């Protein structure tokens, strides 16, 4: 039950892999580019890699800070707090979106009669429980779920291949209408979802501070998951073809439903549902958790309290959208247009304005943290002594979080 260890590079890589997959099996990403969706996805992935580099560069300026701390370093205390609070709310919103996805998915496939409030209550409760257990527990859970996710995907791909449903000709003609529709699909929509969502790493990276493998692990995991997403996207397109893929609400599910082998292997919806449940859980909990951690580092709200604040809000907000159509529209059309402010614009501004001096500023501030026994800083208290610091602010040490400390 020790919560004091650092997150290992491997754990970080697995988290990034699973988080990036997340809810993607629900959609045929980039379907607006027709059979070229995979090209659009490739382009977005490359751009996303650039963003990842930006995030990592920012993180390297102050390895023990999370993004709220970075905001404060770059923009000053007040603006930093406001931005951090904003991002925290945005992440909670995205977590809520996934809760709703989870509800919609369950009610339209597995359990059509079960009321959505019940399904969503359960997943929110599970996410809350995860958050209350701390970062390390969460990362270990992703580790445990990883083989299941990978196994399901492998089995799915294998069965699609064996049943002869994959027709590579469906990807032709390549670039039927030139690059324009592909680029339009890739930017900003595909870059915002799923690729630049890796911005949450700016919350979790600090738990790998001092681990020099973390950077390499992040980059290689990102490359792996990008290739994976492009490959899965292309396979689904090869099975369904652009026309059907654009009609169906859950293309992956549709593709898997077509599998019929030896008169008894059929109706394998459960495989996709399993994938989606794991992916959505990781996404919900990951977003929820990062929102909670940011609320702590921005405003000093203790983790347990923040979790209790956000949990019911996420659950309640998930009912705000009247219909699934509205929900999907809001997610794939509207929110991808404004999330780039936080995912892309602000990090880029930080990259430009914070050149050199931020790193020095961060180093100046650092010694003040660990030397003082009473931890004046809320956001930087994880540095240097991972063995003794209650980094995750777990429930056993409520007193350290009870008083929201002002930023030094």
């Amino acid at each position, binding site marked *: *039950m*020790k*919560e004091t260890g650092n997150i290992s590079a491997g754990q970080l890589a697995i988290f990034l892999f699973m988080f990036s997959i997340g809810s993607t099996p629900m959609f045929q990403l980039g379907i607006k580019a027709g059979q070229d969706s995979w090209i659009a996805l490739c382009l977005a992935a490359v751009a996303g890699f650039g963003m990842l580099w930006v995030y990592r560069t920012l993180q390297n300026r102050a390895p023990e800070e999370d993004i709220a701390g970075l905001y404060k370093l770059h923009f000053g205390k007040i603006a930093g707090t406001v931005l951090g609070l904003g991002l925290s709310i945005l992440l909670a919103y995205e977590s809520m979106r996934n809760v709703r996805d989870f509800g919609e998915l369950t009610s*339209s*496939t*597995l*359990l*059509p*009669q*079960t*009321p959505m409030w*019940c399904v969503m209550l*359960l997943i929110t409760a599970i996410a809350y429980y995860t958050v209350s257990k*701390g970062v390390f527990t969460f990362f270990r859970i992703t580790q445990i779920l990883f083989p299941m996710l990978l196994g399901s995907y492998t089995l799915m791909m294998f069965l699609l291949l064996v049943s002869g449903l994959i027709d590579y*000709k469906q990807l*032709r*003609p390549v670039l*039927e209408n030139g690059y324009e529709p592909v680029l339009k699909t890739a930017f900003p929509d595909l870059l915002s979802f799923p690729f630049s969502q890796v911005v949450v790493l700016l919350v979790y990276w600090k738990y790998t501070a001092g681990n020099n493998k973390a950077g390499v692990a992040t980059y290689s995991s990102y490359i792996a998951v990008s290739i994976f997403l492009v490959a899965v996207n292309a396979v689904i397109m090869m099975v*369904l*073809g652009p*026309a*059907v893929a654009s*009609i*169906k609400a859950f293309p992956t599910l*549709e593709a898997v*439903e*077509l599998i*019929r082998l030896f008169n008894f292997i*059929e*109706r394998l919806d459960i495989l996709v549902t399993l994938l989606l449940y794991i992916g959505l859980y990781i996404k919900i909990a990951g977003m929820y958790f990062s929102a909670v951690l940011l609320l702590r580092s921005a405003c000093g709200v203790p983790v347990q309290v923040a979790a209790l604040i956000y949990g019911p809000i996420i659950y309640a907000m998930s009912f705000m959208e009247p219909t699934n159509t509205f929900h999907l529209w809001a997610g794939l059309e509207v929110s991808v247009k404004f999330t780039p402010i936080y995912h892309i614009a602000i990090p880029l501004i930080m990259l430009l304005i914070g050149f050199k001096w931020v790193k020095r500023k961060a180093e100046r501030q650092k010694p003040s943290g660990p030397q003082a026994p009473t931890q004046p800083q809320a956001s930087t208290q994880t540095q240097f002594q991972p063995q003794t610091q209650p980094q995750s602010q*777990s*429930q*056993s*040490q409520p007193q350290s979080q009870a008083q929201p400390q002002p930023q030094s």
Partner: protein
Amino acid sequence: MKRSYAKGTMSEWSLLRRSLAALLLLLLLGVAGCWDRQELNELGIISATGIDITDSGRWKLSYQLVIPNAISSQGAYVGSSASPVNVFTTEGDSFRGAVNKATQEMSRRLYFSHNQIVIVGEKAARKGIAPLIEAYMRNGDSRETVAIFVTEGTARKVLEQLLPLEKISGAGINRLIGLEEKYGGNFRAMTMFELGQSMLGPVHVGGVAGIGLRGNGDPVDSVDAAKATHTGTKVRLQKVAIFKENRMIGWMTSHESRGILWAKGWVKETSVSFACEGERLKRNSIRIRQKKGKITPIKQGSSWLMRVEVSGEGALMEYNCPGDMSKPGNLRPIAERIEQELKDDIEDSIRGAQSLHADIFGFGNLLLKQHTREWKKIHKNWNEQGFPKIESEVIVKVKINKTGRSVNSYNNTIKEMHDKE
């Protein structure tokens, strides 16, 4: 998490924990799915659906309902006194509306997940099947993997028909088409999904196997029919219905259907009958397996030539012609006659499709994929103007691998002996 509570408080903790655990377990009971449980004895399992249309344009849906009691014993419908299935019909302006009306006359909820086939009456098919595909695509309980058929009469008549050796005729028909696809090579099962996909494709044309009733006209719709050694009316695969833009536009014959399957490379195994040199009656046959079926568009000036390359190999099954079969060179002329036979099939089917103005071969599809720019210029009115003018070149290669357990023909040897005497 540091947990260093004193020993004395342990029991308090565990009591609290136990009650919490108990509460959670209780909650789990609720999660077990009270809302979505489906009890077998509350369901009416549908094995086949039939779609007809009334004169006023309303859908008439017929269902073949499985009667669990009647099929619980082994064997065919022979021996039981109850009919294994029950057919009934509801009517509505929309499909699901019609399905919903079933509650007015059926004591159980209709369950479509085990629906194996959908039979569409010709009249309904000519009216348009887009609403049918739409209903299947949108609903999770009725799967798109059902096989679809078209029948000349009303679909209900086919559903009422019992099949020898099969208890549930819906499942039986599904097995029938599977067998045909595997060994017959004349027809191919078309699923709702494939049909929808081909309608959405660049040429908007698809083919669906036809099913009909053949025989003396006495319907086999009662288990009493099993008391006779023959069945008056049989369900039979025949012809193929061609759909264009969601409407059925005409039939093609079995012979033409075979040509389509060969050209598309969908034949797995089939028998081909062929005549001896100078004869008309096709007295010989070969069991043949398709190796290749490829269509290549070749530009010829301003128009296109479709090169259809087909190859197969097989073993002779019967051979009544003269000739010494022990010499390899002598097999070639025989193979050539088989090639000609297949070539006729394919050429006839291309001609048939051209006269129907329906690009069932997907030539337009190939042009889109391989010559996108040129296709953009000619794709308008492709079925009506472009496709009928397409020229084709059919190249068939047949290899006779085996001649069976005989070398020379028995029939011919007798003749030769007779001539000598």
